[in-house]
C-alpha cells in the first residue's frame, strides 16, 4: 500500500532516536554513524526492528548525514544501499502486523547557503540530489527530509527530492525556543513554501520536547492543508555523570503527543533521546483517539525567508517602484548593472510601508533571466519582504522562482493559452501566488461580465495543473478614464464580482486609471479607495504617494482592520507638518551642533558654500535639495568638481588627521551620494549619455575568495565612488579568475582586494598572481583587518591601504597616470 493512501484514515507512526542507541551499541565519538550500515549491519537491523516491533509504520534509513560532503560518491552509494537494505531487513524480521514503510532519511548538509553563508544554492541541490538518486535506486517508499533549520536549505533538499523522484516527500524543520528556524523563518512561511512545492506532509522535529512545540504545531495546523507531522525530542537534555539524560519519560511523552494528535496532527514519532518505549507508548495512547481529517485551508499566502503574508484580509500594498517603465534613471541603473540603486528602491519602499515588492527588470538590451536571478538574490539579502516576480519572459520567471527563498508572487498569467501553458507548470513546480490578468486572445474586454468570464476560464485551467484558486489573484485591469470614462466602472464591477461571486482575491495596478490627466494623485487615490470598498485585496502602487498611503490607513481604520486605530495614529502623527515655505529653506536644523561643526571649523580650509557645509555635516536631504537648486543654474559635472569633491576633501583630510572618525566620514559620503543621485537624475533626463559623474578611471574591488566580510570593502567602495571613480564591485567571496576577467574587461588600471581573515590571504595572493599574468598593467592595493605592509609586500601587492582615504589617495595617483597615458 502507498503511504499516502494509508495515511488517509490512519495515524502514521515514525521511529524514534537513533544516535543514543548507536552509542550504547558502541559507536565511538567522532565515528560516522552511516558507516555502521556496512560495518555493523546487525546492530542497525536490531535497533530498527525494535522500532517496528514497537509499532512504527515508518523507519528512517540510517542516512541522516549521508551526503556528498562527507563521503565520496562510491562510498555514498554503498552506504545508502546498505542502509535501505538494513531497514527492509528490520521490517521483514519484525513481528509487528502494522503497515511498514522505509523512508530515505535526509538531514542538512551543515553548510549555510549564500548570501549569509558561502555555499551555493544550486550546489546544495546537486548534493542532495545524489543522496536522493541512490535512495530511489535502493527502493525506498518515501523521502524524509528532517532537522532542517534554514528555509533556503530546506528548499534545496525538497527540490532535489522532487526533481529526482516521484516518491512522497515529508519535510520536517527544527524550530528554536522562539518558534522560528535558526535563520528566522516562521511556521507559516515554511507552510507556504513547502505546500507550494507540493511536499506531502510537513512539520517539526528535534530541538525541543513535545510541550515546547505546541505553539509551532498549532501554527502548522492553522495554515497547512497537508498532514502535519511531529517528531520531538524526549524533552531537554541534561548531562548527568557524563551521560546525556532527557527529562520527559514515555508516559508523559505519549500524553503530550496524544494531545497534539487530538488537535489534528497525523504523523508522530520521536527524535533525540526517544527509544522504542516512547513510540510504543504513543501508539498505545493513539488507540483512544480518532484522527482529525486534514482539511483544505482556503488561505492565500506568499512568503519570504522569514514570514508569510496573507491575502484576503487587510489590503496588501505591493511597491511598484522596481520597474524601468518610464523611468530613465532606473533604465540607466539596469544598463550599468547598478544593483545598489535597485536595492535602495527596495529599502525605501519598505520604509514607506509596503508588504511586498514588485520586481521588474525587463529592458530589451539586458539579459533578463540573469539579471532577475541576481536581483532576487541581492534583494533577499537586504530585505525580508516577499517579492512579486514581474516578467513576461518565462525563462527569467523560472530563474527567479527557482532561486527565490520562499513562495513568490508571480506576475503574471492571463487568459491566453500560450501563456498559461508555460507559466502554470512553473508555479506547479516551484510554488507561487499567481497574478492573472483578465484578458485573452481577444484582448481586454470592455465589460465586467466578459472579464469575469475570462477569470472563470483561468480558474479551470489552473486546476488542471493542480493550482487551486486560493493561489490565484485576479487583476481585472485598470484603464485610464481619460480615454473612456466608463473604464473605471467596469474595473470596479469586475473587482466586486470576482471577489464576492468567484471568491478569489483581486489586485490592481492602480495608477493607470489617471493616465493623461493633470494632478493624477487625486483620481488615483480616490479610485484606490473605491476599489478597496469593492473588495480589492491588493494594489501595486507607489508608496511614496502620501495620498495613497492616506487612503490605505484610513480604509483600514474605518473597516475595523486596525485595532484601536493604532497603525493610523502612528502613521498620522508622523506625517510631515504642512509647510508654506520652500522645501529647502527649513532644512538643516539638525547637525548645527556637535562634532561635525567642530570638525568643520577646525579644519584649515573650511567649507565655502552651503552645499559644501551640508556635505561636511552629513546632511543627506539638505544636500540633495541644494544640489537640485544648483542644477537649475550649473552644469552637473561642474557641481561635482567645484562643490562635492572639495567638500569631500575637507572631510577626507580631517579623517586622515583623525579629527573626524569613520561614522562621520560615512555620513558625509552618504550626503555626497545624494548630490550624485540628483546629478545622475539630471543627466539621465537630459540624455547626456555619460554615466553619472564617473570622471575617473575604472576601479575593480572585491573581497577575496573564501572571505564573506564585506563591510570594510563596502565603505571603501562608497568613498571611491564619491571621488568619481567608476567602481565595479564584484562583491564578496569572489573567485580569483572572476576578478581577473573583470579587470581585463574594463582594462582597469587599479584593483582593490580585501580580506579579513588570515586564512583568506592565500586567496589574495593567488588573485594577485593571476592578475600579474593576465592583467600586468593593473596595480593592486590591498586592505583588511589582518593585513600589514609586510604582509602586502610578501604577497606581491603594490600598496597596502590602511583605510578608505588611503585607498582614495592611491587611486588618485593611478588615475593621474591613467589620464596621461
Amino acid at each position: 500500500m502507498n503511504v499516502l493512501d494509508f495515511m488517509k484514515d490512519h495515524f502514521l507512526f515514525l521511529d524514534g532516536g537513533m544516535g543514543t542507541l548507536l552509542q550504547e551499541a558502541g559507536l565511538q565519538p567522532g565515528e560516522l554513524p552511516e558507516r555502521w550500515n556496512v560495518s555493523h549491519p546487525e546492530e542497525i537491523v536490531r535497533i530498527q526492528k525494535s522500532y517496528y516491533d514497537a509499532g512504527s509504520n515508518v523507519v528512517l534509513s540510517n542516512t541522516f548525514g549521508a551526503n556528498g560532503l562527507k563521503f565520496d560518491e562510491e562510498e555514498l552509494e554503498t552506504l545508502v544501499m546498505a542502509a535501505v537494505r538494513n531497514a527492509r531487513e528490520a521490517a521483514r524480521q519484525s513481528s509487528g502486523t502494522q503497515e511498514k514503510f522505509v523512508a530515505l532519511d535526509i538531514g542538512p548538509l551543515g553548510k549555510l547557503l549564500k548570501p549569509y553563508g558561502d555555499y551555493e544554492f544550486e550546489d546544495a541541490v546537486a548534493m542532495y540530489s545524489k543522496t536522493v538518486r541512490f535512495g530511489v535506486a535502493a527502493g525506498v517508499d518515501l523521502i524524509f527530509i528532517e532537522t532542517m533549520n534554514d528555509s533556503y536549505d530546506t528548499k534545496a533538499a525538497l527540490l532535489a527530492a522532487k526533481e529526482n523522484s516521484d516518491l512522497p516527500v515529508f519535510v520536517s524543520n527544527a524550530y528554536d525556543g522562539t518558534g522560528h528556524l535558526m535563520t528566522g523563518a516562521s511556521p507559516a512561511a515554511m507552510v507556504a513554501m513547502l505546500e507550494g512545492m507540493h511536499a506531502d506532509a510537513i512539520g517539526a522535529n528535534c530541538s525541543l520536547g513535545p510541550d515546547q512545540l505546541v505553539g509551532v504545531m498549532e501554527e502548522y495546523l492553522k495554515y497547512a492543508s497537508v498532514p502535519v507531522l511531529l517528531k520531538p525530542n524526549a524533552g531537554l537534555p541534561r548531562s548527568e555523570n557524563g551521560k546525556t539524560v532527557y527529562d520527559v519519560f514515555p508516559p508523559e511523552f505519549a500524553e503530550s503527543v496524544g494531545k497534539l494528535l487530538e488537535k489534528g496532527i497525523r504523523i508522530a514519532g520521536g527524535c533525540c533521546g526517544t527509544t522504542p518505549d516512547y513510540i510504543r507508548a504513543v501508539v498505545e495512547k493513539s488507540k483512544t483517539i480518532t484522527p482529525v481529517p486534514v482539511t483544505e485551508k482556503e488561505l492565500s499566502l506568499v512568503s519570504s525567508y522569514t514570514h508569510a503574508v496573507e491575502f484576503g484580509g487587510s489590503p496588501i500594498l505591493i511597491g511598484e517602484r522596481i520597474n524601468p517603465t518610464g523611468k530613465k534613471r532606473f533604465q540607466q541603473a539596469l544598463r550599468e548593472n547598478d544593483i545598489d540603486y535597485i536595492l535602495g528602491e527596495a529599502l525605501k519602499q519598505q520604509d514607506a510601508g509596503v508588504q511586498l515588492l514588485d520586481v521588474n527588470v525587463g529592458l530589451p538590451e539586458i539579459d533578463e533571466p540573469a539579471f532577475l536571478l541576481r536581483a532576487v538574490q541581492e534583494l533577499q539579502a537586504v530585505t525580508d519582504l516577499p517579492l512579486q516576480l514581474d516578467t513576461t519572459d518565462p525563462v527569467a520567471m523560472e530563474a527567479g522562482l527557482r532561486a527565490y527563498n520562499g513562495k513568490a508572487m508571480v506576475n503574471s498569467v492571463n487568459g491566453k493559452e500560450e501563456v498559461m501553458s508555460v507559466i502554470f507548470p512553473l508555479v506547479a513546480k516551484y510554488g507561487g501566488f499567481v497574478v492573472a490578468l483578465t484578458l485573452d486572445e481577444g484582448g481586454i474586454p470592455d465589460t465586467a461580465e466578459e472579464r469575469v468570464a475570462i477569470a472563470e476560464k483561468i480558474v479551470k485551467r489552473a486546476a488542471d495543473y493542480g493550482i487551486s484558486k486560493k493561489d490565484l489573484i485576479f487583476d481585472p485591469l485598470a484603464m485610464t478614464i481619460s480615454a473612456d470614462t466608463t473604464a473605471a466602472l467596469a474595473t470596479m464591477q469586475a473587482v466586486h464580482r470576482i471577489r464576492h461571486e468567484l471568491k478569489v482575491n483581486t489586485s490592481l495596478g492602480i495608477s493607470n486609471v489617471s493616465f493623461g490627466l493633470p494632478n493624477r494623485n487625486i483620481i488615483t487615490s480616490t479610485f484606490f479607495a473605491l476599489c478597496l470598498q469593492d473588495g480589492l485585496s491588493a494594489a501595486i502602487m507607489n508608496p511614496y504617494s502620501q495620498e495613497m498611503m492616506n487612503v490605505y490607513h484610513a480604509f483600514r481604520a474605518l473597516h475595523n482592520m486596525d485595532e484601536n486605530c493604532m497603525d493610523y495614529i502612528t502613521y498620522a502623527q508622523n506625517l510631515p507638518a504642512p509647510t508654506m515655505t520652500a522645501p529647502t529653506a527649513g532644512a538643516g536644523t539638525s547637525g548645527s551642533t556637535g562634532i561635525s561643526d567642530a570638525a568643520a571649523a577646525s579644519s584649515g580650509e573650511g567649507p565655502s558654500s552651503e552645499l559644501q557645509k551640508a556635505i561636511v555635516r552629513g546632511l543627506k536631504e539638505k544636500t540633495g535639495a541644494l544640489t537640485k537648486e544648483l542644477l537649475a543654474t550649473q552644469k552637473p559635472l561642474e557641481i561635482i568638481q567645484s562643490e562635492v569633491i572639495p567638500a569631500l576633501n575637507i572631510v577626507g583630510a580631517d579623517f586622515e588627521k583623525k579629527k573626524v572618525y569613520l561614522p562621520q566620514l560615512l555620513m558625509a559620503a552618504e550626503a555626497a551620494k545624494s548630490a550624485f543621485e540628483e546629478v545622475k537624475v539630471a543627466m539621465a533626463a537630459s540624455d547626456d549619455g555619460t554615466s553619472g559623474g564617473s570622471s575617473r578611471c575604472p576601479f575593480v574591488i572585491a573581497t577575496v575568495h573564501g572571505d564573506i566580510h564585506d563591510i570594510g570593502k563596502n565603505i571603501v567602495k562608497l568613498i571611491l565612488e564619491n571621488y568619481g571613480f567608476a567602481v565595479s564591485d564584484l562583491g564578496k567571496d569572489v573567485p580569483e579568475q572572476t576578478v581577473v576577467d573583470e579587470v581585463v574587461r574594463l582594462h582597469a588600471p587599479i584593483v582593490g582586494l580585501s580580506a579579513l581573515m588570515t586564512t583568506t590571504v592565500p586567496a589574495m595572493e593567488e588573485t594577485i598572481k593571476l592578475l600579474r599574468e593576465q592583467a600586468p598593467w593593473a596595480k593592486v592595493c590591498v586592505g583588511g583587518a589582518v593585513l600589514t605592509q609586510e604582509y602586502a609586500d610578501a604577497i606581491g601587492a603594490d600598496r597596502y591601504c590602511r583605510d578608505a582615504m588611503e585607498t582614495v589617495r592611491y587611486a588618485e595617483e593611478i588615475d593621474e597616470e591613467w589620464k596621461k597615458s
Partner: protein
Amino acid sequence: MDCRRIIEEALASDKQTIPQYLDYDTPSLNVTEWLRYSCIPVYEQENAAKDPEIAASMEAALSLIPGALSFRVGFCVVPLSWDEDGFPVFPFAQRSEKLRKNILGCDRAVLFAATIGSGIDRLIRRYEKADPKLGLLLQGLGAERVESLCDAFNGEVSEICKENGRETRMRFSPGYGDLPIEVQREFLPLLDAERRLGITLSDSCLMAPSKSVTAIIGISG
C-alpha cells in the same frame, strides 16, 4: 543553575562533559565598547554622543535589536593532559605555543561557543547600504553584544570556579595568535554547534551567524 551543576560536577570528575546549552537574558550594554567596535575611538566618544546624527543612529540601532537577538551559549568541560613536548592535549589537534602558555598549570578547560543569532546579520545587511553609519553602528553593536554574552558566561564560570577554590584564565579563541582558525572544524562539532546553536562554518572557517565566538577557558588549581 545548570551551569553551576555541570562545572562543579566536572571539577569533581575527570571525564569530558556532554555539551550543555544556556539561554541568557540580555546582557547590560557596554556603550564604550559598542562605539569602539564601531570605529569611534574612546577619546572621541564624548564628542560623538553630542552629534545629533550619531545620537539618532545610536537610538535607531538600539530600537532595532529587541526581539532580533538571542543569547545562547553551548559549552563542555574537558580534562587536560599534556603530551611529551609539553603541549596540552585537547579533543582537537593543535600545537599552539600561545595557548600552551595561556593554560599552563591548568587541569581542565571549558570549551564554549556563544552566538547572538542570525537576526543581527539580517539587520546589518538591511542597513549597511541604505544607511552606512547605521550599518556600522549595528556591526559594532553586534560585536559588543556577543562579547558581553561571553563576559556573562565567562563571569559565571569564573565565579563558580573561585567558590570551589579554583582559578580561571583569560579566554582564548581559535584564530587568535598561533592557534589556527582551522581548529574550528573540530571544535564546533564537539558542541554540536550546527544543530544546537545554528553556527555553521564556511570553507575558510568563518562562522555564520557572524556574531558568534568560540573560546577556551583554562581552569587551574
